[in-house]
């Protein structure tokens, strides 16, 4: 039967992982049960900042089934992805409540847990740095005394020894000081919020087994399989080739599984029991308190306009709360700086972005990598400045929206290809929200309805050599196995890559079988599955691999069909003459070699390979930030309508609108899923999520009962998602990245709508009724 190829890019193909997820058949890491596997548990710090005087493991050893106990002196060396500042197990000092101080390995999880509770640590308490503002004070207690001696793993990190500043990133564009003096109107405003949690439904876990031949076999819930190899090589001195990392499908990640924390712990645990298979799985409370979380933030934004209301100058001071260790917060500090203006054309920019240590759990990447946070500050300022100037906030945004020909804060020049159409997104969102100029209305039952908008932008801040590879292996029946190291975290990436392969090969998408799990021994290298980069990097790699396969198919096809390769086309699982499509041969008869009638065979398996690496990205200059840090900027607009009850300060979210320009949309339904889910996540964080710390730096709400995630019924009554598709020449079929973007403008759109409704400037998160009441009634 001839299978007719139909276009798949742009089609809402069903996700290839949906059915097995619906039946409970997908094996997440925790579902891979192996008899005889040992279980590890961490004993954690009960102080936020203290010197470790002694660790007594005697009582813990008495628990039946305990096989090993590992403490920080086993491996007293700091590790980290950007700045190596974190011993895997606390050594000498603890710097946050919940930090691992020992690992216990036992036959069963309950035994390990029991033993962990019997570890006795004597501490000498040190003063606790309990906020990012406190950390920034000159006389603040110092959290890392050896800050000047830590190894820099990447170049763009600038610690300031003798302070709590893990990195200071500067942007200096134009002449800020002079421009500021000439501004007709200016505004200064400050914003803040605490650390919060990724709260992926699947908690983090890892297993490690060390074979007698030295191979280290890791299974992990990670977005960064090759980073695990790198870290085990860099810090534990294991040959890269001897580290094999397996990643099953993940139960959500949101950036929180990009960090490498559990794998070194499980490695140390396995080492302690002679290399036996050891599993470390976090319980929810550990996932919230011990594992890395979402940054806290404090920002002061100053904006100035000229007579026409055009932005002339912007100054941005970001205090990014890293918590106890810098991890990815150091990278977020840079990412927030390089996009500090939001999608606005501002000729004179001055930004100081500080990565700040505190005695809180440490933070890592979170969906949006600094952008939801900076956008909250920028878009609130835009609304307040528009009000001050007495202009419509949407008109004010449109007047200043960034366009091709302008440059970013790092002076990257924007072109028709590398940035989407910001204004078009804004105008469409304005129509969809039925904008009536910041007016509030009162409903029949006395509630106040208000709308808020936000623009957003983000580049994909990868390393300058970030890359992905793809291999297409043809099976005897002419179908294709697609091997790549993109991690399926729920975003649907495997479906997208199958569509891209099918489109280029002009094959039925059902004939593309994607490797769902990652195995670093078989899959080609991929930087990480983060930064909305997979469609772009892995997608381009798949295209290159498909082109490679097509070349090979034509070559062997030319032999079989006795013609020139140049006369041939590939499509519908056939190789055929362009001028006479009925004359051709099925791929299945040539993809493992062409067999002549006498049995002689030429060719062999068709294996298409492809790689895509970022092109011409540069590091940022230390003093000015000058550089090309990302390949493109996806942009969009979001709008929210709320109904606020003045009696009790509660509110409902009626509409949540996202209009996004991510270039060509490969699959409109998976893209819509990402946008809806993104704005939902952003609204959940903005409306209710925050770690609460007591005066000792201890989280008071480390579980899903007290940490308020948005529940069913609290979500927006209506989601609207639309796409503007300004194609990107460099992307696969014109695509840019979209994965993180839905979350970026959510908090600011919500805060803008509530600020209108309450006639109060709401510049903190989360926007709980209590916070709104405090701000409005108490004035702080």
């Amino acid at each position, binding site marked *: 039967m001839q299978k007719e190829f139909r276009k798949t890019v742009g089609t809402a193909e*069903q*996700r290839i*992982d*949906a*059915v097995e*997820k*619906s*039946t*409970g*058949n*997908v*094996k*997440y890491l*925790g*579902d891979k*049960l192996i008899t005889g596997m040992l279980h590890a548990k961490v004993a954690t710090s009960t102080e936020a900042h203290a010197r470790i005087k002694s660790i007594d493991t005697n009582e813990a050893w008495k628990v039946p089934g305990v096989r090993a106990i590992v403490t920080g002196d086993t491996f007293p060396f700091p590790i980290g992805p950007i700045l190596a500042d974190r011993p895997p197990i606390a050594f000498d000092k603890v710097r946050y409540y919940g930090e691992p101080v020992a690992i216990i390995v036992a036959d069963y999880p*309950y035994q390990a847990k029991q033993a962990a509770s019997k570890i006795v640590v004597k501490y000498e308490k040190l003063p606790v740095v309990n906020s990012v503002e406190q950390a920034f004070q000159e006389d603040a207690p110092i959290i890392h005394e050896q800050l000047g001696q830590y190894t820099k793993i990447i170049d763009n990190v600038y610690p300031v020894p003798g302070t709590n500043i893990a990195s200071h990133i500067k942007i200096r564009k134009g002449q800020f000081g002079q421009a500021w003096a000439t501004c007709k109107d200016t505004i200064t405003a400050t914003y803040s919020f605490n650390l919060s949690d990724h*709260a*992926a*439904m*699947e*908690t983090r876990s890892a297993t490690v087994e060390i074979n007698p031949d030295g191979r280290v076999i890791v299974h992990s819930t990670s977005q960064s399989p090759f980073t695990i190899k790198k870290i085990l090589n860099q810090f534990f001195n294991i040959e890269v080739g001897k580290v094999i990392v397996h990643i099953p*499908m*993940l*139960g*959500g*990640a*949101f950036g929180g599984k990009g960090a490498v924390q559990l794998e070194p712990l499980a490695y140390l645990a396995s080492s302690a029991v002679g290399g036996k298979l050891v599993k470390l799985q976090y*319980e*929810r409370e550990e996932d919230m308190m011990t594992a890395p979380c979402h940054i806290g933030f404090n920002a002061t934004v100053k904006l100035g306009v000229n007579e026409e209301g055009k932005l002339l100058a912007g100054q941005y001071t970001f205090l990014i709360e890293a918590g106890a260790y810098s991890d990815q917060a150091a990278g977020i500090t840079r990412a927030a700086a390089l996009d500090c203006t939001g999608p606005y054309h501002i000729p004179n920019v001055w930004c100081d972005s500080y990565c700040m240590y505190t005695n809180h759990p440490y933070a890592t990447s979170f969906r949006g990598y600094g952008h939801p946070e900076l956008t909250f500050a920028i878009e609130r300022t835009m609304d307040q400045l528009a009000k001050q100037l007495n202009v419509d906030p949407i008109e004010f945004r449109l007047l200043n929206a960034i366009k091709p020909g302008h440059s970013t804060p790092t002076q990257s020049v924007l072109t028709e290809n590398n940035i989407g159409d910001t204004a078009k997104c804004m105008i469409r969102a304005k129509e969809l929200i039925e904008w009536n100029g910041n007016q509030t209305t009162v409903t029949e039952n006395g509630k106040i309805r208000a709308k808020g908008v936000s623009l957003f932008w983000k580049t994909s801040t990868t390393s300058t050599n970030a890359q992905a590879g793809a291999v297409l292996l043809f099976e005897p029946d002419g179908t294709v196995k697609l091997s790549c190291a993109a991690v399926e*975290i*729920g*975003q*649907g990436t495997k479906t997208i890559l199958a569509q891209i392969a099918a489109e280029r090969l002009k094959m039925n998408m059902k004939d593309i079988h994607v490797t769902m799990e990652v195995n670093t021994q078989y899959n080609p290298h991929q930087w990480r599955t983060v930064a909305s980069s997979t469609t772009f990097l892995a997608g381009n790699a798949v295209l290159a691999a498909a082109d490679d396969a097509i070349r090979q198919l034509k070559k062997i096809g030319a032999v079989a069909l006795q013609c020139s390769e140049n006369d041939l086309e590939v499509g519908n699982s056939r190789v055929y003459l362009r001028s006479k499509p009925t004359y051709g041969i099925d791929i299945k008869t040539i993809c493992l070699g062409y067999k002549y009638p006498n049995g002689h065979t030429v060719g062999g398996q068709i294996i298409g390979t492809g790689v895509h690496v970022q092109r011409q990205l540069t590091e940022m200059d230390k003093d000015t930030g000058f550089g090309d840090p990302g390949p493109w900027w996806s942009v969009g607009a979001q709008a929210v309508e709320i109904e606020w009850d003045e009696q009790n300060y509660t509110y409902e979210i009626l509409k949540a609108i996202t209009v996004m320009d991510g270039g060509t949309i490969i699959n409109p*339904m998976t893209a*819509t*899923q990402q946008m*809806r*889910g993104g*704005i*939902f*996540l952003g609204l959940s964080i903005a409306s209710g999520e925050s770690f609460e710390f007591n005066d000792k730096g201890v989280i008071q709400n480390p*579980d*899903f*009962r007290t940490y308020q*995630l948005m*529940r*069913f*019924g609290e*979500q*927006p009554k209506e*989601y609207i998602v639309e796409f503007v598709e300004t194609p990107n020449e460099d992307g696969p079929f014109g695509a840019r990245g979209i994965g993180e973007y839905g979350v970026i403008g959510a908090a600011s759109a919500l805060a803008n709508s509530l600020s209108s409704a309450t006639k109060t400037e709401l510049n903190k998160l989360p926007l709980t009724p209590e916070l709104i009441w405090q701000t409005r009634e108490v004035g702080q």
Partner: protein
Amino acid sequence: MISSNTRKYTVVSLLVNGVSHDVMIRSADTLLYTLREQLGLTGAKYACGNGDCGACTVLVNGKPMHSCLTLAIESINDEITTIESMKHSDIRSAFVANWAIQCGYCTPGFILNCHALVNEHPDADDEIIEEWLKSNLCRCTGYQEIKDAVKSVLEANKLKAKENSNLAQ
């Protein structure tokens, strides 16, 4: 049924998905732990261990229960249904058809809860749906697609019931 009892372990039979299985449990073992570790039914997930998220939901005598808050020993006289027996359920198909699945980790718990919901409340309105599904957390979707899935099954069931009553007349 308790088959044997030692100081540490007890052998009991559990009726799961219509089949009786002997399992060896400690008195502190949760139903979730036993289903997963002893029977390999890993569709029910651990996510909070505290009854806050519903990822561990199974049906006990047709009613949704948090298996992380239920002891295995408590369940010896009950009929337990897990996601593994839901392959042919309408609500499972509706989750796929309505794009209600992203990472999939909360999905089994949601599907079982929704299955019980449409059985118990064939006329469920938004309020009842919200009341029932508030017990389950999803971090990926934003809930809209899940609501659509439930409503599509409720509607289809109503149509079927109407057709049946027409036939009966």
